[in-house]
């Protein structure tokens, strides 16, 4: 049995690139629509909440509300982009389009395919998150240089949420089940993890829960960088995010093996 799992793990360090490049080629054909679709939602939130609530809220921790919100929206848009790319697009490639079926007939393994999909979803997260950061910087809410520093954090956020969504993909019988993950996990996380208001506003029990959630670690990495403030606990945040990226990755391979290779 253990041998069976070993045979589906990534075969080497580079096989996944072929899957990433396949997705990149498909994306290039619809890039404009895809970019607009990824940006519209976080932009609406940033400006709608930022300007609208900003008037009422005033300053948070010495910065304007919209500047505070910008870091949260960068992390949130990375999360959403990676989640949706994996749940809908990768699921379609696994099922309706039979793309994975074709790939699994080559010398690639299931692990290579999953890794390629996660890397691709993380790439889309970087595009979406960076675009929000660029808009924030061009409006003067963040330093330009901070974008460069936040890219690694955005990328790992993308990996984390792609990896978690891959577990959902491996278990969901159909598209209809994704809405549960979206409404019960993803959306609450936006409010629990300090993306739109400081975690310190919540009762202490909720704060402790937030400390365990991946988006909170992403926000705590990205926001201080964008605001030019000193960040604490970087090692802890990165460590927690790595756990959230790696464990679901292996879990999803094991679950997908049971689903696809029986």
């Amino acid at each position: 049995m253990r041998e069976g799992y070993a045979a589906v793990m990534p075969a080497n360090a580079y096989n996944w690139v072929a899957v990433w490049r396949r997705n990149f080629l498909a994306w290039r054909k619809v890039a404009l629509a895809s970019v607009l679709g990824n940006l519209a939602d976080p932009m609406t939130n940033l400006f709608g909440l930022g300007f609208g609530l900003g008037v009422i809220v005033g300053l948070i921790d010495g910065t304007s509300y919209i500047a505070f919100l910008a870091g949260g929206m960068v992390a949130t848009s990375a999360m959403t982009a990676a989640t949706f790319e994996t749940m809908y697009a990768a699921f379609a490639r696994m099922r309706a389009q039979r793309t994975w079926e074709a790939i699994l007939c080559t010398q690639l393994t299931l692990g290579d395919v999953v890794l390629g999909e996660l890397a691709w979803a993380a790439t889309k997260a970087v595009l979406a998150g960076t675009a929000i950061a660029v808009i924030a910087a061009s409006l003067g809410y963040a330093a330009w240089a901070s974008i460069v520093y936040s890219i690694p954090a955005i990328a790992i956020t993308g990996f984390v949420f792609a990896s978690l969504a891959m577990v959902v993909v491996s278990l969901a019988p159909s598209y209809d089940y994704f809405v549960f993950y979206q409404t019960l996990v993803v959306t609450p996380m936006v409010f629990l993890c300090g993306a739109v208001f400081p975690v310190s506003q919540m009762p202490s029990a909720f704060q402790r829960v937030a400390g365990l959630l991946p988006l909170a670690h992403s926000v705590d990495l990205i926001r201080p960088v964008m605001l030019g403030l000193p960040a604490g606990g970087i090692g802890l945040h990165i460590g927690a995010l790595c756990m959230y990226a790696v464990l679901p990755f292996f879990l999803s391979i094991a679950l997908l093996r049971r689903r696809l290779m029986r």
Partner: protein
Amino acid sequence: MSTVAIDLTCVRKSYGDKIVVDGLSFAVASGECFGLLGPNGAGKSTIARMVLGMVAPDTGKMTVLGEPVPARARLARARIGVVPQFDNLELEFTVRENLLVFGRYFNMTAREVEAVVPALLEFARLEGKADARVAELSGGMKRRLTLARALINDPHLLVMDEPTTGLDPHARHLIWERLRLLLARGKTILLTTHFMEEAERLCDRLCVLEAGRKIAEGEPRALIDEQIGCQVIEIYGGNPNELSSLIRPYARHIEVSGETLFCYAPDPEQVLVQLRGRAGLRLLQRPANLEDVFLRLTGREMER
């Protein structure tokens, strides 16, 4: 390169209570076309997926191109080309892009793929279609592109799951002709099919399956001679019971399937004499084929 391309020993696979492959053993020699013939649900596709390492057997031993499968199936797959039962081409990509993307899955560079594309397109008779979107191709063209795609890594072994199902006769004959060309070039083919004609035309040897069990194995002609060995008269119309008692003395064997009576007769003239003058009968005299073998072995016709 060993002379045995595929070796299965006592392979068994069940899903819950349902046994899909039941103690199956067979060996495919390098350079031969080996057919798995059987009705839908006989376990053909499961066996093809096992050979690729995509289904692990419950018990039994499998070796493909010298590699133990599924443990080292990846290394075997590097030298296998696959034509799946259902097309899984990239519909939004062009023909050329499909080959490029697939070549990369075998770690080929763009330059290496470009070098083989002209020959593959010529083989698939898709010369003018390199830059056409796959969604615009006909069903037969898509199948031929799938075949070209399966050849991109210059495989030793081709695994084909129902390669001509759903094609019109013209497209089917074109695929058969291409497959014979591949055999002439020394490729090994494992073919699953429920088309008797396909199995008879292409396969050097075949294995007839029913409910996951092997019920016969051998060369198509030898199987036909061994199991039937005479002419067949198909009789439509009339009362099968009455007719069979009339011709029984002259028949080696009689099968009734639906409203058709199959009479296996060493001397067909004798049977025809008995039936002469009877109204409402349609008679067809023909040489025996694999269809008869299947009917003989299982007592029923192959569903089409």
